[in-house]
């Protein structure tokens, strides 16, 4: 018979045990005050040797079965494109990976991500004000109902945290600025980590396509209005270890990548060497080594208890595997849950002011759930493509996006937008070999009404598909998503999780800024493809525009940090500041960091690289708060 169990009070209670919680748990547990810390996660502990090394090479079990991921019958989410629609629940996992492949257990979704981990540049932290200053009125013209806000800190404020994050999780990249760059103009020092810091490991070896892309960039003239005199190609910044490493300052040993190719392919595979950076193999071991840390697995958090008098979270309640209800009291609570689960638990618990959209005004009030954006959206516009005379082993050889080369010149405000109908731009990269199996990438995932997979003609196209003597290259560049008032997260009125609590409901569609940016940037990418020697270079609309096909769910925003307590949820310390609540903003004991605490961004799909420095900031804030409770001052 199940019962109610009250756990010993902890100084810090971490909700979830992924990237963000792992870092905060380690930092606070290592504090000289010997703070007690607990991290609670709904899944198990994964040992990469015994759990992954012999059963991960299983495309059907991993790709469709999602055998290492969160089970849908326990909890799903619902999706719609506009506030007037009925939101459909995600019923099943698909190949290739599509919605909601949430991680499960220690390490979280980072057990299966691609490992892209660059930095967001200064422009991304002040998109709104920089755009208004440079192009007055443009934002409202592009996206009349935009809800874009600056971050509470600028890039310089986050730079020290980036550096620490990169050393702990172990990043690979160049330390020497842009290769072959002698232009001396824009050198993006913030991106190559030479802003006073160095990446701890060299980049992965470049593929022939990566090399060719790099050379072509250096030989291509920048577009009209560019604020640079030549392109600046960089080796892709990856969080997959390129050599044996011991992380700093924790001293946790890290094995290198073995390039087995069962890696990316739409972010499918867990890593059997632990080279793919995540909390389980970088930070949780450091927390455990202190003796101050407790890990609770297979525990489903269903409520936080909010004390309206003291403006604090007092307890987290969770179910264990036997149905017992555990009450976990604490001094400080840190929410490191994935994506919209962070919002969902707040809405279920009455923490913060729920966002309410008004269809009559086209705006909304409140902040929890407000400002949902998506960092990644193929099909949103125009693509450039071509064919290179380079062969490849397109089967299981590669490591997600490692081996590729990126340029950052076509993003942010690195070119004049006066006569353009979008802001920002896109990071363009080529050459990464994700590997992956035939079902995910080539066949099953492509089966559609226009490509039915039926008959000898289709079959003949699959012959030796993994041994190509030419390589198709291309890019669908898209400008950053801009938060709007009608894109948000709330609780679904119809569907519940296995315990009877409402699922989260996502209301989202792609924005004009993304479409417009893709249309413009594809023509520039086509010029680079031509310089690469590609044949059959084409610029054209991507075939399908299915508005709810948010591949990979690279959501950002929805629970944002900001400068204004009425429209954001957390302040610059990632501390909940009782946004919109009556009375003074005294600052609560509730902190959070994750992709959805980002306000905006113009870098790669996943917002993890931008959330990571926030978790460091939060860890510092929590240590201050444990000494002196109250609203932390910026």
């Amino acid at each position, binding site marked *: 018979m199940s019962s109610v169990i009250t756990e010993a009070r902890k100084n810090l209670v971490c909700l979830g045990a992924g990237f963000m919680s792992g870092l905060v748990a380690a930092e606070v547990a290592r504090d000289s005050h010997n703070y007690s810390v607990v991290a609670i996660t709904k899944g198990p502990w994964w040992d990469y040797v015994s759990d992954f090394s*012999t059963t991960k*090479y*299983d*495309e059907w079990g991993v790709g469709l079965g*999602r055998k290492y991921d969160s089970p*849908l*019958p326990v909890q*799903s989410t619902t*999706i*719609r494109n*506009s506030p007037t*629609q*009925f939101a*459909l*629940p*995600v*019923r*099943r*996992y*698909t*190949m290739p990976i599509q919605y909601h492949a949430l991680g499960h257990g220690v390490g979280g979704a980072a057990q299966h991500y691609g490992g892209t981990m660059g930095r967001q540049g200064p422009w991304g932290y002040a998109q709104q004000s920089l755009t208004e200053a440079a192009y007055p009125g443009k934002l409202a013209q592009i996206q009349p109902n935009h809800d874009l806000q600056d971050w509470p800190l600028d890039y310089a404020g986050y730079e020290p945290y980036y550096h620490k994050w990169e050393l702990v999780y172990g990043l690979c990249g160049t330390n020497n600025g842009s290769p072959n760059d002698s232009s001396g103009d824009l050198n993006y020092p913030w991106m190559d980590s030479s802003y006073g810091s160095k990446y701890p490991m060299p980049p992965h070896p*470049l593929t*022939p396509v990566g090399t060719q892309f790099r050379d072509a960039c250096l030989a291509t003239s920048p577009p009209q209005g560019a604020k640079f005199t030549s392109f600046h190609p960089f080796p892709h910044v990856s969080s997959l270890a390129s050599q044996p490493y011991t992380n700093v300052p924790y001293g946790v040993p890290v094995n290198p990548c*073995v390039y*087995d*190719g069962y890696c990316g392919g739409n972010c499918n595979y867990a890593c059997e060497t632990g080279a793919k950076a995540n909390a389980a193999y970088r930070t949780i071991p450091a927390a455990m080594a202190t003796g101050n840390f407790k890990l609770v697995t297979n525990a489903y958090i269903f409520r936080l208890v909010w004390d309206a008098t003291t403006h604090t979270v007092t307890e987290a309640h969770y179910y264990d595997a036997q149905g017992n209800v555990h009450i976990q009291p604490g001094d400080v609570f840190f929410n490191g849950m994935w994506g919209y689960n962070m919002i969902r638990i707040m809405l279920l618990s009455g923490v913060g002011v729920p966002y309410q959209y008004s269809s009559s005004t086209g705006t909304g009030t409140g902040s929890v759930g407000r400002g949902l954006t998506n960092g990644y959206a193929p099909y949103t516009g125009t693509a450039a493509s071509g064919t290179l005379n380079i*062969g*490849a*082993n397109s*089967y*299981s*050889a590669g*490591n997600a996006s490692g*081996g590729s080369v990126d340029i950052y010149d076509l993003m942010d405000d690195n070119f004049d937008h006066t006569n353009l109908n979008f802001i920002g731009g896109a990071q363009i990269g080529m050459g990464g070999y994700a590997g992956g*199996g035939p079902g995910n990438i080539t*066949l*099953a*995932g492509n089966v*559609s*009404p226009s490509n039915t*997979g*039926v*008959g000898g003609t289709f*079959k003949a196209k699959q*012959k*030796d*598909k*993994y*041994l190509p003597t030419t390589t198709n290259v291309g890019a669908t560049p898209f400008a950053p998503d801009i938060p709007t008032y009608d894109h948000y997260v709330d609780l*679904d*009125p*119809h*569907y*519940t999780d296995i315990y009877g*609590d*409402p699922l989260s409901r996502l209301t989202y569609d792609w924005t004009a800024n993304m479409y417009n940016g893709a249309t413009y940037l594809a023509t520039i990418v086509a010029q680079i493809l031509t310089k690469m020697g590609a044949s059959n270079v084409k610029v054209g609309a991507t075939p399908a525009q*299915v*508005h*709810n*096909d948010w591949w990979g769910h690279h959501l950002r925003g929805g629970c944002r940090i900001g400068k204004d307590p009425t429209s954001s949820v957390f302040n610059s310390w990632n501390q909940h500041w009782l946004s919109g609540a009556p009375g003074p903003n005294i600052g609560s004991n509730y902190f959070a960091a994750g992709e959805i605490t980002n306000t905006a961004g113009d870098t790669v799909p996943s917002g993890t690289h931008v959330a990571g420095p926030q978790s460091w900031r939060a860890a510092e804030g929590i240590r201050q708060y444990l000494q002196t409770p109250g609203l932390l001052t910026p």
Partner: protein
Amino acid sequence: MSKTTRREFLKIGLAAAGGALAASGMEIPLFSGNNSSMQTQLSNANTQLTNLQNQLKTVTGFLTLSVNEQALLEPIVETIIPSDSTGPGAKEAGVIYFIDRQLAGDYGQSANMFMDGPFIPPTQNAITGVPTSARYQDLYPSLPTLIDYSGTVVPRIGSGINYQYALNLRAFWKAGLEAVQNYSTKTPAYGTTFQRLSSANQLALLADLWAGKPSVFADDHGTNIRPVDFAYELSFMTWAGFTMDPLYGGNQNMVGWQYMGFNGVNLGNAYGEGLSQKDLMVANTPTRLKPASLAQYQQAAAGGA
């Protein structure tokens, strides 16, 4: 398309399964040991062969597909991936066994799917008066309990929100296969069972499903499904049976992987090639690796075979 009788088909399936077992690293130690007499070695080999045949007989069969379903699905998967001059097809890969195993297990039971109601078709135009859940009303008593919606999103076929049937996938396949047969027999242009159609008409009928052509697509007792939804399932699962690991019952003898030039779990040294994955990743000419299965990989990792 060559017409294979039921009996011939099962024999082919058996042979293909034998190939898969042999390829899965199960080594028969023929003529091993220098001092054994030839007679002993032959005797041992015969015993091994008999054991292998017995093992195959005990694992070749159907768990869930009915006799009628087997007879219908066999020509369907062979239409989707024909055995032709380019190489083996669904028949040699044993795709029908893959689908049978999947429908008999978690896949058919929709074990990892979110299967709570209400079930609203993704093409629904307007919904009114759908009651909210009791739990939601507890949390938000001030909000209305009846909500009017202007419709649903339009998902991609095959996407995670497209399947909105109040049926687990086994039941969906049962209805879908019956619907295919009904459409085949009741449509004047076809007028007979799918099995009896010409190859061209079999191809044409599957194209009809993809195009949404059937105005009625229902099982024998009136359960309606969208033709395109079942067409997706047929193509998806047939190609999966051709390309997933042999452990799942299809891709027997790894014929699917060989056809596509995929290496399976040969990471460069499964047969002593001595190749490095890092080198293969940066190579500019392709290297064909003989595929290895997950079972072979595991046996090698365990120091066996």
